[in-house]
């Protein structure tokens, strides 16, 4: 850092707001830690309702990540590699859920997939299947809000991995699918992992779209955030313990992933080597 010192002291106009931002972000978490009735934490962890909500959150967030991998990776590839008319429009469309309030997303999902919805109506008439207020609906809602994070992250990684390697692979006799499998995807792996973590985190915290589209039924659609909100309405004190549990789980998983994956820099380009 000594070489940076030669540039002069950091201006107060920058470091004072920076310090304020840190305080602003840290104080609520600190308050939560201080206010948590730690003695009841273990007892709460053993309660069937909390366990059910935790299990459901784990299952639905993982299912969301899988859905993002299966649907989002091809979409990211198409956006990064295929020049088709309306690509800009599709990319804009993909980013809309990023700025959409989650409740609005829930209402939109009902309009589309509800029992009398655009798609849900015919589906109900044809098969008798209805989506809302099922565990599947939770995954649908989560995927709807998480997919954009995933696609944007992976598209960026695919772009920076460059088309140069695609051409090299094609020249060596590879089909596009073989190239995708053996070259493009491995090189974009850091982006895929980062996108998965983003999607997973978004899914774990998702509340608005879920309660609107899937409801808040313990055991089938009540995820941890919904559980926390339900408990909070009845007993604000008890909600702190649950909030603490969710905080610990998410921070723990992020900490585990961070060392291995999230510090990875930009994907390699043609002409530069990477030592694993």
């Amino acid at each position, binding site marked *: 850092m000594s070489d940076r010192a030669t540039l002069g002291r950091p201006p107060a106009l920058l470091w004072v707001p920076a310090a304020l931002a840190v305080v602003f972000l840290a104080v609520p978490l600190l308050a939560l830690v201080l206010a948590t009735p730690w003695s009841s934490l273990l007892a709460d962890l053993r309660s069937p309702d909390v366990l059910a909500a935790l299990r459901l959150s784990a299952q639905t967030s993982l299912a969301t990540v899988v859905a993002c991998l299966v649907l989002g990776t091809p979409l990211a590839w198409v956006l990064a590699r295929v020049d088709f008319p309306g690509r800009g429009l599709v990319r804009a469309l993909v980013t809309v859920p990023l700025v959409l309030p989650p409740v609005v997303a829930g209402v939109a999902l009902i309009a589309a997939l509800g029992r009398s919805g655009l798609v849900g109506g015919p589906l109900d008439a044809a098969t008798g299947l209805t989506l809302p207020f099922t565990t599947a609906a939770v995954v649908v809602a989560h995927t709807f809000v998480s997919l954009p994070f995933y696609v944007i992250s992976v598209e960026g990684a695919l772009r920076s991995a460059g088309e140069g*390697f695609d051409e090299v692979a094609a*020249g*060596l006799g590879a089909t596009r699918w073989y190239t995708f499998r053996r070259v493009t995807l491995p090189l974009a792996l850091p982006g895929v992992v980062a996108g998965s973590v983003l999607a997973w985190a978004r899914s774990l915290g998702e509340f608005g779209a879920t309660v609107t589209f899937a409801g808040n039924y313990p055991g089938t659609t009540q995820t941890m955030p919904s559980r926390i909100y339900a408990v909070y309405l009845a007993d604000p004190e008890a909600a702190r313990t649950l909030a603490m549990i969710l905080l610990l789980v998410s921070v723990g998983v992020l900490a585990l992933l961070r060392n291995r994956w999230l510090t990875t820099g930009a994907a390699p380009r043609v002409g*530069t*080597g*990477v030592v*694993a």
Partner: protein
Amino acid sequence: MSGLVADLDVPGRLRAAVRAEEGDVLVVVGPNGSGKTTLLRCLAGLLPGGPAEVAVAVGGRCWTSPLLLPRDRRVGYVVQGQALFPHLDARENVAFGLRARGVERRAARDRADAELERLGVGHLAERRPGELSGGQAQRVAIARALATDPELLLLDEPFAGLDVGVAATLRVELARHLATYGGTTVLVTHDAVDALALGTRMLVLEDGRVAQEGTPAEVAARPRTDHVARLVGLNLVPAGPAGLAAFRPSAVTLSPGAPTAPSGSARLRWRGRVEQVVPYGDGVRVSVRTSGDGPDALLADVTAAAVAELGLHPGVEVWASAKETAVTRYPAGAADDAAPTLRSGHGD
């Protein structure tokens, strides 16, 4: 013709007819932006363009009608900067093309090992590109291109970015490999040494057109473009209405005043200013920017004693002259007659 027959027309970038026999090493030279890499990409099928623009036939088989995808062409392309797959080790890089064509894993690896061994990097099979030096990576890249038994080998500046010593060694080895390679090679380079050491044919591109074609020795002896003249270290000046004159820098004499022409020995002479003075071999190479209707710049090789005696340093006015006996004169326009027009002479 069993080798390479190509008529290329990429609007605004390249318009050239390219011919080479099997076993030929066609060296392509030209200034930056003259279309060298475009030519290689065309042959590899990496530029969009229908058969109307690009006609390529290799080994008697047409690659452009119907248009073959890059992966269906039997081509080995070593792009500039190697572009080895960074996540695969050297062996997997070389085996990639075979695996992509459905060769079974075991066989592909054996072939890759043999190819790496041939290029002298067999012991590095398990290293990733990031753990290889520039010369080693280039050897792996060449092994990768050769592993699929291409009929057409494309090399884009294979020695660029390598240390001088490494490049020299690799050049010698490559010459040996190319001598045993049965297909046609097209090699793009910036270096006259590459052309003379490796080439059997030479093609000079300028502004996307073929400016000159011939054996490397012919082109080096009678360059038609300033670029090639500079590459081979010759002075090239216009002479007469449609002629060129080439002469070595060592044939140039510098003097402070206008040289008097002894009767019977005509001399070419120009007036100019010394631009640069650099050591060259056991003498000094002086670059003179000429004024008037001569060439832009002339090179003169003089002795260190002459530099001191004439006080040659940048800015000094001098006269440069060349003995007529040391000058090769030849017509300039032949390039246009020799360059085949697009889509004529196809299949001969």
